[in-house]
């Protein structure tokens, strides 16, 4: 049995897909983007980040694009990653799943007020 799967999609993998939805990013930028979009709750360590990236690459949900420098961070060449259409589809299906969950939660009046 594969011990590491994308079904169900781990939250780290989902966050990485989301982080790449806007632009191609390198590892550290993904980590920072994920930290931003989760308001600092998820700080991906190198092991988790790159094993998730590895899994997503193997599933062809993201792809590597030409490595280049990130001038804001110095002169090291960095590998950049891009969301594939399969990755976008996967992220969308996960988002829809969460949205339908949200509808249920809303219907059950889990939330206070109407702001969600």
């Amino acid at each position, binding site marked *: 049995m*594969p*011990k590491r799967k994308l079904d169900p*999609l781990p939250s780290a993998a989902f966050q990485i897909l989301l982080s790449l939805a806007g632009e191609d990013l390198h590892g550290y930028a993904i980590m920072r983007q994920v930290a931003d979009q989760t308001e600092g709750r998820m700080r991906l*360590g190198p*092991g988790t980040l790159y*094993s998730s990236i590895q*899994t997503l690459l*193997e599933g*062809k949900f993201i792809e590597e694009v030409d490595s280049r420098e990130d001038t804001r961070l110095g002169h*090291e060449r960095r590998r950049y990653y891009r969301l594939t259409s399969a990755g976008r589809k996967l992220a969308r299906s996960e988002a829809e799943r969460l949205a339908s969950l949200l509808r249920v939660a809303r219907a059950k009046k889990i939330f206070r007020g109407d702001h969600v």
Partner: protein
Amino acid sequence: MSEKIYVWLLRLYPSRFREAYGDEALQLFRDRARDEKGFFASVRLWLDLLVDLAVSVPRQYRHANPALIGASAQQRLDRLPSFHVLESESPRLGALLSGGVLTLVALWGVSVLNGHAGNDPPQGASVAQSQAPAYASSAFSGPTPQAANDVEEETTASLQSRMYGTNPQSGDANPGNFQSNPFLSPKGSEFSQPQAQPPKVQAAAQDDDVKLGAAERHRVIAGAIAILKEDYIDPAVAQKTADALLAHEKSGDDDAATDGAAFADLLTRQMADASHDQYLVMVYYRVTPPDRPRGPPPPELVAQYRKEMEQNNCTFERVKILPHNIGYLKFNSFPDVSICRPTVVAAMAQLNHVDAIIFDLRDNHGGSVEMVALIATYLFDHPAHMNDFYDRKENSTEESWTLPPIPGNKLVDKPAYVLTSGSSFSAAEAFSYDLKMLKRVTLVGETTSGRGHMGLPHRIDDHFAIRVPGIRAINPISKTNWAGTGVEPDVKVKAEDALATAEKLAENKPRKK
């Protein structure tokens, strides 16, 4: 300094991950270390790293087959079922160990269940049990095909003289090897196969938990002793065994055995201790098997046997010519001659011009005496006296000879080698032993298992039977056989080294042209 520590920690990851992402991980560490300065930030960084290590290192080691990981997610998108072979890596030692332990437990469980199901004790697995589960399923619709299959009456004893039994332990161990069917008599005339019509199972005999009292036990012991004394090949051993059974009964050794299967096991052990004959076996039937009719087996069984032999090339696994013009023939049983003669003739014709021949019997589990004689015929320019079968009850001896020389056969004076292993059984042992006694072959490999003679079950009552070997193979040269001791090889090497050893011997032997 802290970077060095992290480099060292990175070594905890599997090399595959380090090669792919080691540099990136280190780069990410550097980026964070550069951006997150100050005491609290550093502490948080290291906490993050340690948590990350704790989570991701085990996951990397569990990571089985990357190529398949995407498939399950893909499957979710497509909503289609898909199936994959998942393991491409060899299992870890720990997994192997726990798997081994589980297997042992499962085997133990199965044997316990078997014991309580009323079939033969494992050591007594008979020809019937070990041979042809397919036959049982096709021939029976009754609830206990196997038990029924086991029933053999004394009338079929003559069959023993022509069929060796096969490995009692090999019944299901090796599905690829169909073992020769000892029910098929070489002449096709005398099968001891169960009848085709469904068995009549007596309702009264289906009582699952027959509790045995002293009187029932005595009756069974007395019945067993009567059959032993009448039929067992060696009257002195029969007497000794009978005395031992009575002594055990008298001293109260049997008192605890109130369950039929346990009692049968106990008596089997007692008989084995006294006789040293593992074929002397008590059989317990939870459900009374039907009486065996006499006469030939149903044609569908013959047809099925024929079909199986055709499918597996009569168990002739390999026929080839090795370097230095050494013929190599590996066959895993001695199948019925009436069906498999053409296979043997074709194989031997293919090897007719070799300078030496190797018969590989390391996985051979026995079969027909006629087939033993037929294959041995290729090694002689005259009919050779292979073996005698002494039937105690009939007080008669049947001789087994090779056939008249085969015209055009060039193997008669070629060096011949037989490869043996601890799994060579019965007819394979006869072939090895008899040809060794005739000094016609060199045996290379391991001592064989030592299954000299088989016992067919003789019914004592509805629930008990005793297997009593009634026929003994007596080699005309040694005046004895391999029972109990096995056949000693001339060149003793491990079974897996036997072929290489025999090839060397054959290469170095001066050739007769």
